[in-house]
């Protein structure tokens, strides 16, 4: 960055003899090249996290906050590490997977029961769920992709997307900062 500032200054000094119009253009170009990195930097900082849905799906998806709007919100109350109940709101994972064409519902039988969902976080942490764990026909236990806790957005270190497993005693599968979900057959 400092080099560019110097460039700008030296251009102005050197170009004192060239016509005013040309000098203006040069200065303008220098100014653009000087500010561009700031503009791009601002854009990068505002970039939003997404979740890639892939594997044994008919439609691979890239999910963002807008995409999740089309589903009915579901709420799960779960004790956190502090020992207090917290209300998480989000979308049932099964609904998201159904929109990607994963074999849930009536199709979840036979060899499809050997499929699992792998969820990955931005730090590389991974956990898995058998598809049957996610399906309402198998269990009433809700597994959701939460976006809010007690009415507020998840903390940056937890969100923007976190899996919340209803009634599961250990929080290890309540994976934070989810970046990818992929469905696979066992090998």
């Amino acid at each position, binding site marked *: 960055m400092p080099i560019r500032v110097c460039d700008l200054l030296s251009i102005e000094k050197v170009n004192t003899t060239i016509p005013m119009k040309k000098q203006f253009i040069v200065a303008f170009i220098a100014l653009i090249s000087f500010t561009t990195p700031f503009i791009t930097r601002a854009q990068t900082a505002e970039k939003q996290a997404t979740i890639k849905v892939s594997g044994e799906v008919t439609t691979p998806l890239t999910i963002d906050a807008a995409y999740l709007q089309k589903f009915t919100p579901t709420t799960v109350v779960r004790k956190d590490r502090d020992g207090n109940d917290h209300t998480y709101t989000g979308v049932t994972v099964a609904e998201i997977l159904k929109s990607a064409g994963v074999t849930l519902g009536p199709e979840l039988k036979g060899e499809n029961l050997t499929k699992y969902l792998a969820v990955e976080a*931005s*730090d*590389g*942490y991974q956990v898995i769920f058998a598809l049957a764990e996610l399906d309402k026909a198998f269990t009433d236990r809700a597994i959701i992709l939460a976006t809010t806790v007690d009415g507020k957005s998840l903390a*940056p*270190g937890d969100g923007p997307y976190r899996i919340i497993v209803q009634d599961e005693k250990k929080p290890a599968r309540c994976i934070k900062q989810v970046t990818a979900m992929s469905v696979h057959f066992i090998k």
Partner: protein
Amino acid sequence: MLKRTRQYKPLKKLPVGKGRIVLVLLFFAVALSGWGYLSNGVETGTYNLAYPANFGNRINIPADNPTTKQGVYLGRMLFYEPKLSATNTVSCANCHKQEKAFTDGLPFSKGIDEVLTTRSSMSLANLLWARKFFWDGRATGLEVQAMVPLTNPHEMGQSLEISAKKLSKAPGYPALFKLVYGDKKITGDRIVKAISQFERTLISSNSRYDKYLNNTYKPTAEEMDGMLLFNSDPQPEIGIRGANCAHCHGGVKNYMELFHNNGLDSIPKDAGIAEFTGLATDEGRFKVPTLRNIALTAPYMHDGRFKTLDEVLDHYSEHIQESAGLSTFLRNESNEPGGTSLKLEYYEKKEIIAFLNMLTDSTFITDPAFADPRLRPAQHRKS
């Protein structure tokens, strides 16, 4: 000197027939030296990657690069081969020295010129289980990883095409490539594949910690206390002290392939994985490196800022810097009620360091099978 010059000069004027003889003789000399390598007998066949059962079988070998004894031997030759650099002076081993668990003891490394690398050289141990390589995990396989330092203009600075050409003219190599790949063709792809095969064999599984897990070593009281702190979450409310290390460094391999911001800077100079994800929460996030042989791999962190393990422990205990990307494992974890950093006692740090020294594998750093095959007797040659 003058006499010799006079003797050689007439050679240029030799009739065509004699020139051919010289060529044929040269050919035989090259062929003979190549045959020399083979006559020593490079063992062939599937390489047996031996490791303890508790390391697990989630290993990472691409289907198009199975590990063979001859491939590992070639890879080992190439790992120590300075011809793979533009100046013929730098090999992989310059920055990955066996005695330092395949690191170089420097914060940043020098390659073929004066420009230093931007991050510290990483240890090469138990890569067989790794899926993401480099401090930012951008390479998804060893084959892709190996290409980078080979061709980086400041590290080894030579295109794979030129490396392949140079090796084609180097005695021994065409024959070795034939032994590994079925024909003498030398390509960049074949070079990185062989190097990767060798790197997958760098298994460290004979530390005192391994022996402890195997019930063949009884740790000292200090090591035991250190291990307990290492594996415990601090819970000052109920009187449990801990250093919370195992969240990221736990498991039998002391490696979990995670990427975290460990509070080095409030504004990271190096963006880490945010460089390609563009997310504020990824700023200053780097690979959590293996703690295998950690006592041998100073200086520490991606930029080698800490010279000793004492400095590392002081950092985690007292100097965690807040930022958007700071790992949740390092937030508000303390041995003091309501504290924001670990606050370990002096003796507790010493205990943890005693445990960390249990992770040193002296077999790994002296195994002749991992050393330069030109200097020591090769283990994978027939006796």
